[in-house]
């Protein structure tokens, strides 16, 4: 049973289309959303989080329609949302802000609420700074305060917009642990620019570009689409879409490999670069034609 069903979803900002004809079904597990800046990732997540209404198509979350009052409320009761950006009311401590969000999430019993706030503050590794004002925290810590509030009440749908921004490698590893555990029962959708996070966490990956879905499948499926298109050479190849010199001094070329080269296993990043690069070329050809 799919927890999220999107059919023919469309959204425009003025005349500029942000999403066009998006059809998706999501169920429990971690789904990664990749795409260049402006691809529509944040728009899609904001629609899922009931922060933004779609212009076209149908949205169903847990069978509920976010366009009706009762449906929206039912979705919001089961939702945890980490927006790409959010400010904080002045003067709140980390604990105080998460507590404020818990009140808004209908945790009216003080003892139970504070126990839950302590749990999520601990999960986000913020116990040591729980009594500090949010405005005195570092960028990564503030990001984790926002993550902590998203985890309140073990939501069935977690919508996380770039959760790994500003985290160091240890914090990212810890976040992966939290998210993979949550993904055992809940539906998680995360957008990111870090392909390694997707490779490490997600059973499914969706690539958005210019408001359309260009890939929807397993991480292995996306990686295998780049098989034979990554090779090592002594120099940058003129036909390569991307090339960089790696630590050993040789060049890693990504593109259409010529014959008789030393082909290596692609990574998710290679596959993503190729997918988006191929798309850009097709668009160019269309424009020229």
């Amino acid at each position, binding site marked *: 049973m799919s927890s999220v069903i999107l059919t023919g979803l469309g959204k425009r900002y003025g005349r500029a289309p942000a999403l066009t004809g998006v059809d998706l079904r999501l169920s429990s597990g971690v789904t990664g959303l990749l795409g260049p800046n402006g691809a529509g990732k944040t728009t899609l997540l904001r629609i899922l989080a009931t922060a933004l*209404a779609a212009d076209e198509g149908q949205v169903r979350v847990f069978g509920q329609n976010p366009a009706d009052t009762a449906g929206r409320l039912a979705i*919001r009761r089961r939702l945890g949302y980490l927006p790409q950006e959010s400010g904080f009311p002045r003067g709140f401590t980390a*604990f105080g802000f998460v507590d*404020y969000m818990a009140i808004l999430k209908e945790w009216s019993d003080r003892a139970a609420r504070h126990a839950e706030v302590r749990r999520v503050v601990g999960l986000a590794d913020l116990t040591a700074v729980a009594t500090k004002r949010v405005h005195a925290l570092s960028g990564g810590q503030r990001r984790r305060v926002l993550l902590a509030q998203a985890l309140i009440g073990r939501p069935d749908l977690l919508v996380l917009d770039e959760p790994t921004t500003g985290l160091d490698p240890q914090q990212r590893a810890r976040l992966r642990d939290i998210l993979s555990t949550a993904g055992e029962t809940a539906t998680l959708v995360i957008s990111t620019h870090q392909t390694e996070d997707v490779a490490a966490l997600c059973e499914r990956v969706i690539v958005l570009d210019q408001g359309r879905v260009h890939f929807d499948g397993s991480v292995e499926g996306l990686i295998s689409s780049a098989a034979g298109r990554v090779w090592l050479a002594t120099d940058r190849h003129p036909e390569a879409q991307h090339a960089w010199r790696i630590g050993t001094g040789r060049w890693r070329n990504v593109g259409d490999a010529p014959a008789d080269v030393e082909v290596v296993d692609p990574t998710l990043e290679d596959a993503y670069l190729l997918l988006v690069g191929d798309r850009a070329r097709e668009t160019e050809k269309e424009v020229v034609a």
Partner: protein
Amino acid sequence: MTQQPRTWHANEAELRALADGVAGPALGASVESHLMRCGACRARMNDLVDGVLLDSVWSAIRETVEAPRPSVFERLLRKFGVSAESGRLLVAVPAMRGAWLIGATAALLFAGGAALFASGFGLALFLLVAPLVPVMGVAAAYGGDADPSHELVVTTPYSAGRLLLLRTAAVLATSLPVAALVGLALPGPAWLAVAWLIPGLAFVSLSLAAAPFVGATVSSGAVAATWSAIAIAVSKIGDPMDLAGPAVQVGSLVLCAAAVTTILTHFRLFDLPRGQT
């Protein structure tokens, strides 16, 4: 105290007495000071202590340390019977902070002072400013920049309309008494002190009614600009007292009733995601 053979370590009976809370002051103090230095006895003590009790003590300590200290406003609200939860929701916006209240009071004192020293013009100024103070409070409670975590707040199950009304009630509760006190100090009939009350309520409800369509900043700005234009025109052509006259009062009542009806019939609009009508 019964004499027991002393060893280098506390014996079972002494540890148990301390754990059960029945050791006398002398025994308790000496076992405690021994425990501070002796890891082996601490480990034995662990097994004797009730884990549930320890956990509850620890969470009570954390509760005291971590739970946010209520601000002056929150404590004041508690005195008036507002729950701690509602208090928390109220103080998250600029309208509930000292700076805003000081600003509102200063504006009223200035207008009131002008009324005292420059009667006609000053009175018009007071009647212009007083009903707008709560309107500005609403903007500071719900305007675009008022709640920096708006994107998050709107996606919670808590009703945005209810939150708005709660914050409006708090704005009215803090700004109306100040305006009434300044009004009482003015020359002229005593009813002048509250003559701006109905227009004030009308402007607040108008701003709220229009807020879901154009945003609270625009709606309160438009209301303030319109009233200022009317007030200036009236005091230029006629008598400033007309600003508190029956025409304004009746007009305000009608506006207020219309705006409140709009709010009640369109209450669900406050919870809408952006872009939905």
